[in-house]
């Protein structure tokens, strides 16, 4: 492959010397050495998967998996898209390799011409008169949309169970019942055997300044905290413990 510029569309040119795609609207888009080599191979008509593997990796003594091949095609396709060409310009043919799509649109011309030896004259620039006009924004491919959807789904699946656990967590409250008696809040661990008259008497006997009373019982034993402020906020409290029977 020589260093001649190859026009991919009216406004996109492949410049091998600079390893870039020169575009009118988006400026130069740099290609990595492998992307450049792949584009050169495709333009040269060396489109078979085995040939691409051989030319790009095996000749350099590298053994790579098929995912590297697909990744490279994907990256090149993305850069061509960024340059304003349609993603379909490089078409994957299962069990064969890749072809440059514009070739297919030109009547009886083959999608990818037969492979030619390296010493053959360099291929002619690909003419893509049927390509659509360059779009200003990069296109959204379906695979990107699927990827975004999958990311959202996976994130939900990771976060949702934790949210359910946090939201449904039942934190027991020490004093879950509240009764307001004449300016004093009585906080009770249970409403069972609550005697309002006894609370009113208790209220009457309270020293001045007490505004919260906490009462909890367990069997015969009773715990009472008389607080200026709230017990949970470490208000000033006096404690009383006794057996009721």
């Amino acid at each position, binding site marked *: 492959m020589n260093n001649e510029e190859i026009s991919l569309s009216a406004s996109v040119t492949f410049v091998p010397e600079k390893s870039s795609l020169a575009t009118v609207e988006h400026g130069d888009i740099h290609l990595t050495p492998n992307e450049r080599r792949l584009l050169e191979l495709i333009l040269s008509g060396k489109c078979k998967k085995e040939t691409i593997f051989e030319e790009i990796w095996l000749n350099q003594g590298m053994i790579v998996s098929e995912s590297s091949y697909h990744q490279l095609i994907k990256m090149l396709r993305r850069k061509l898209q960024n340059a304003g060409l349609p993603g379909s310009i490089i078409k994957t043919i299962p069990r064969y390799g890749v072809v440059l799509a514009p070739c297919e649109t030109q009547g009886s011309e083959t999608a990818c011409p037969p492979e030619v030896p390296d010493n053959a004259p360099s291929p002619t620039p690909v003419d893509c008169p049927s390509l659509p006009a360059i779009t200003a924004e990069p296109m959204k491919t379906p695979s990107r949309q699927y990827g975004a959807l999958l990311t959202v789904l996976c994130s939900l699946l990771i976060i949702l169970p934790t949210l359910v656990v946090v939201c449904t967590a039942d934190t*027991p409250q020490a004093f879950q019942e509240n009764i307001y008696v004449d300016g004093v809040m009585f906080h009770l661990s249970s409403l069972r055997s609550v005697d309002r008259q006894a609370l009113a008497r208790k209220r009457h006997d309270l020293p001045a300044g007490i505004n919260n009373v906490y009462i909890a019982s367990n069997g015969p034993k009773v715990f009472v905290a008389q607080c200026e402020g709230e017990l949970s906020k470490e208000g000033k409290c006096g404690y009383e413990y006794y057996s009721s029977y």
Partner: protein
Amino acid sequence: MRLRILFVILSVCISVSLGGVLAYLTSGYLESRMVPVEPCSSVIRNGKFIDESLEHYQFNGVITWWPKLHRLTLFGVKTDEAGNRVFNRTLQLKSVTQKGNVINGRVAELKIAVGDQLPQKTFLISEDDQYINLLFKPINKNSWLMKINDNWVAMCEYK
């Protein structure tokens, strides 16, 4: 296409597993916050109680729950008709389990300190080889309402 479906299935499976593990860890964390994780004490002053012989007594002392040691310690003075008597006892628990805000165990050993002046058979919280249940209800991040079996209630605060 098949590879993509496999990838989606794999991603979903990994996400579900991660979500499950995260939920399990969160649940464990929330559960651990329901009970004290460090020693907490109940200081009882002038507690007016009735013992198993239906005799009135006054209790001045401290009950401490040692969560990591699975141990309840009692220290103080019991005042009754016999006068003031010091008690200093430890209930060592075994087979301790926690479910929510309840800790259950069995009294493996009742250790009575040398200075303890109460008769050996005096029942304070529990006897040897008896089941014991501690129920904690949070008041704030440093204190809980602690209920022991069916006859003790006190506020337990971090030491």
